[in-house]
């Protein structure tokens, strides 16, 4: 018997919360899915900053830790 193991989703952490997202999604796609305007945020993947230009070409994988930050009021 052949065991078929197809993974459609993967678990990653976004801003401290565990999320299930579509397998193979890249960062630009994720921001789009979360309805976040890419122009106003900065993304860090596993502690490395992902520039706006490389968000499209950076694919996510199971267990990734993502931080999406922006500017808020502060002193």
């Amino acid at each position, binding site marked *: 018997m052949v065991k078929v193991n197809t993974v459609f989703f993967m678990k990653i952490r976004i801003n401290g919360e565990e999320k299930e997202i579509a397998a193979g999604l890249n960062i630009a796609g994720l921001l789009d899915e979360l309805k*976040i305007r890419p122009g106003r945020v900065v993304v860090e993947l596993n502690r490395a900053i992902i520039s706006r230009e490389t968000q499209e070409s950076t694919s996510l994988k199971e267990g990734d830790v993502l931080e999406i930050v922006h*500017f808020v*009021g502060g002193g």
Partner: protein
Amino acid sequence: MQDVFKLGEKFYQSRLIVGTGKYKNFEETRNAIEVSGAEIVTVAVRRVNITDPHKENLLDYLSPNKYTILPNTAGCYTADDAVRTCRLAREAGVGNMVKLEVIGDDRTLFPDVPATLEAAKVLVKEGFIVLPYITDDPITAQKLQDIGCAAVMPLAAPIGSGLGIRNPYNILIILEQATVPVIVDAGVGTASDAAIAMELGCHGVLMNTAIASARDPILMAEAMRLGVAAGRKAFLAGRIGKKLYATASSPLEGILA
């Protein structure tokens, strides 16, 4: 007389730097800052609320084309966290000037001085224009200046305390040896506090709570604009010396006998 303020690579007309925290909403933030005349505004770096991403963004109200955006490292308790925050902030594309604060304790919000020095070294090396928040300690100010910070920002009193300039003499010593701008950061409560800082010879004043938490933030923003401007002019004009006894202002000749 043209009296411009150079900070980092740019020149400014206003010597008042304001924070953007604690306002009722973005509209009040924008209006108060407009009235304050400030050209540099501080912001914090925080996680986006991913469950409600539709929220408006602060920068929709404070255009980086109009204001110099000065990201802070508020909430950072280690040099590493502060450096990480600055790198993220720089990636946002609003320049490379940062307000470095490494907090030592959440009750006083006093800075962790050794960690601030450590972070400043890394950030200067990475090309940041570093404006560190420090205690009113001349030795620390000197060290940060030597590291290559673009200004030093001694506190007047604890952040948000409104206690005013607690130690004008330390500020004077910092000013005497400074080769970079000295900006009083934190502790200002009202317009006279801002004026005192400027009269001492400080190059600028940074505040947030004093305006944002005033009963009428817009009116207080105007008061602070005038307080900073008045203090600066008084400093440039050169105040009279203090004397114990009176000196008559009216002529002593021609008094009716």
